[in-house]
């Protein structure tokens, strides 16, 4: 099976190269980038076949592509891939507006290609363990969540993460979708209403977008949940940030840290502790699921609609931050 990578705008593209190469029977057939210099540089660094254009990559007939452009540019690449009848794994958030996200889903459905949203937390072994305990009934009824998806300013990875035109927003756009998706997955219920507050106190002089964000989401089944999306971690934090949640049920609470499986390294070279993650590679499992879904000709376990539902919550969060009151989530 041949899989290609479209764009290195998102730094995850680099991880996906290694993930693809680790799967038996899968060939990283090529990479392309609208910025040929960047594309060639990464192609060379990872010893991957380089295509001058996206069209050329798609004409080589891969079985699937992983789209790693900036958030607002996912749609045109998804349209290209779909019209070439090529299956898509799209970086999150799948779009910066609900209209674009809907179109991403629609063009893939019409073309009859698989569309998977890159929500790697679905493949986190600690989170999967909690999901199975929840499904077994041992935790009883869920009442609420207290979640955090905090990070450092992501410009360390790529400058466009704080460009409103390319990223679609700041901390709310970047860090709402993972926890929304986890909660939808755990609860089997859709978000109904969102309250959000944002500010720009961290890195105030460096960026235009919000860097602090707190949200309270209410689901149709009555469960409520907060998400802290803030880019509040200093650049000398032991790692990039993290994702945690406390899930409160009738039996008590389960506190989950998706990135707790670390060794702490103190090195003269760094002059600060660094957490090195030893937990299982969730990206590997996610890319593996994309490949398996293509092989088996079935829907992936995380769909484009999952990506769309998360974008709907983001849109409502921005509306609420403007209004200062909770806003209903509009499902399209």
């Amino acid at each position: 099976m041949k899989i290609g990578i479209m764009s290195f705008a998102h730094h995850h593209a680099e991880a996906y190269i290694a993930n693809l190469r680790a799967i038996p029977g899968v060939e990283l057939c090529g990479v392309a980038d609208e910025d040929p210099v960047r594309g060639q540089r990464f192609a060379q660094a990872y010893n991957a076949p380089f295509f001058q254009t996206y069209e050329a990559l798609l004409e080589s007939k891969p079985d699937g592509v992983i789209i790693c452009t900036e958030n607002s540019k996912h749609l045109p690449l998804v349209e290209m891939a779909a019209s070439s009848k090529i299956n898509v794994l799209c970086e999150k958030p799948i779009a910066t507006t609900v209209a674009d996200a809907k179109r991403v889903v629609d063009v893939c459905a019409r073309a009859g290609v698989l569309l998977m949203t890159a929500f790697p937390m679905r493949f986190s072994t600690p989170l999967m363990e909690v999901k199975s305990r929840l499904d077994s009934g041992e935790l009883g009824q869920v009442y609420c969540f207290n979640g955090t998806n905090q990070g450092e300013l992501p410009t360390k990875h790529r400058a466009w993460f704080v460009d409103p035109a390319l990223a679609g927003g700041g901390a709310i756009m970047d860090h709402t979708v993972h926890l929304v998706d986890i909660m939808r997955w755990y609860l089997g219920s859709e978000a109904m209403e969102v309250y959000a507050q944002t500010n720009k106190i961290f890195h105030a002089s460096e960026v235009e977008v919000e860097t602090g964000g707190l949200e309270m989401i209410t689901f149709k089944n009555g469960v409520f949940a907060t998400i802290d999306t803030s880019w509040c971690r200093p650049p000398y934090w032991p790692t990039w940030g993290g994702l945690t949640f406390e899930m409160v049920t009738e039996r008590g609470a389960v506190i989950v840290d998706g990135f707790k499986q670390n060794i702490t390294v103190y090195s003269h070279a760094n002059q600060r502790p660094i957490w090195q993650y030893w937990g299982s590679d969730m990206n590997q499992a996610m890319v593996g699921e994309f490949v398996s879904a293509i092989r088996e000709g079935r829907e992936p376990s995380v769909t484009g609609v999952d990506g769309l539902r998360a974008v709907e919550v983001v849109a409502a969060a921005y509306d609420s931050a403007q209004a200062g009151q909770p806003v209903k989530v509009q499902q399209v």
Partner: protein
Amino acid sequence: MRVGLVGAGFMGVTHAAGWAETDAEFVGIVAETTAEATALAKQYSLKIYPDLASMLPDVDVVDICTPTHLHHEMTLQAAAAKKDIICEKPLGRTTAQARDMIEACRKAGVKLLVAHVVRFFTEYAMAKASVVRGEVGKPGVIRLNRGSFRPKKPAGNWFLDETKSGGILMDLMIHDFDYARWVAGDVESVFAKKVTTANPNAPVDYGLAILKHRNGALTHIVGSWAYPPPTFRTRVEIAGDGGLIEFDSADTAPIINLVAKPSSDSPDVGLPSSPVAESPYTTQIKEFYSVLLGEKQPRIQAEDGMAAVQIAEAAIRSAATGQAVILESLSEVLS
């Protein structure tokens, strides 16, 4: 200075231990029943009074450690008798009550000291001092967690009667409402939810609140009565534009017990504790004693106690209505 205590519950016991560490004359106690007061009376050689009115002539200071809904009436009674007052948190069950208490004490010319003990916990006071020194810059997003088990009582569990205690948003989370305001300033709006609103028969409770401060900072506050006894866990995170402060009682516990216990008995109400030379409750009573002697200024004013009640009341209203609640400024409330 003669001190009389009202209330012999877990907080009365805690304050009594603090008074014993001062030079004040700790003379009397009032409790709901004489039986409840007996142990404390014996330990500290206190006279047991049948009610507050009969104790007032014999004391200079009244320390009110009764259920929340009784604070207002007892404060007014003590103020009318020109006694200085120490009152457990929350200052009043409502903002209106708290304002009334402040007004009564001002008119009577007596001191009103509100026991927000969190300000006396060394780690909390140290984090506040670090912010004041500018070590983390301007606070942007603050996270405050306080979690324990649902308060138990042998009889008459007033904690679970929201008309008396205000429930988890008032009784437990007011600690962190006050602390948030101490660190990041006055609050503009509150949005909150709690488990027992949608699930009145839930065996646990858990509250979440989002505060927007007038200076733009945001605070996320968690209150839990969902953990198994004897858990008591607190956590603070203050992220600023120049750094980050954090501590978690689970991470700073200097002793980890992995010993077999004969029984896992727990107190009625969870209390945070870490082995330190002086209990923060005692530090608080000692500071209040110095304030009453006119030797120093308290780190908390009665108006701060009212402001915390105002935030908690807004949280209760938000949870009930599903809307964010905009707060009146303190000067508006007091005028």
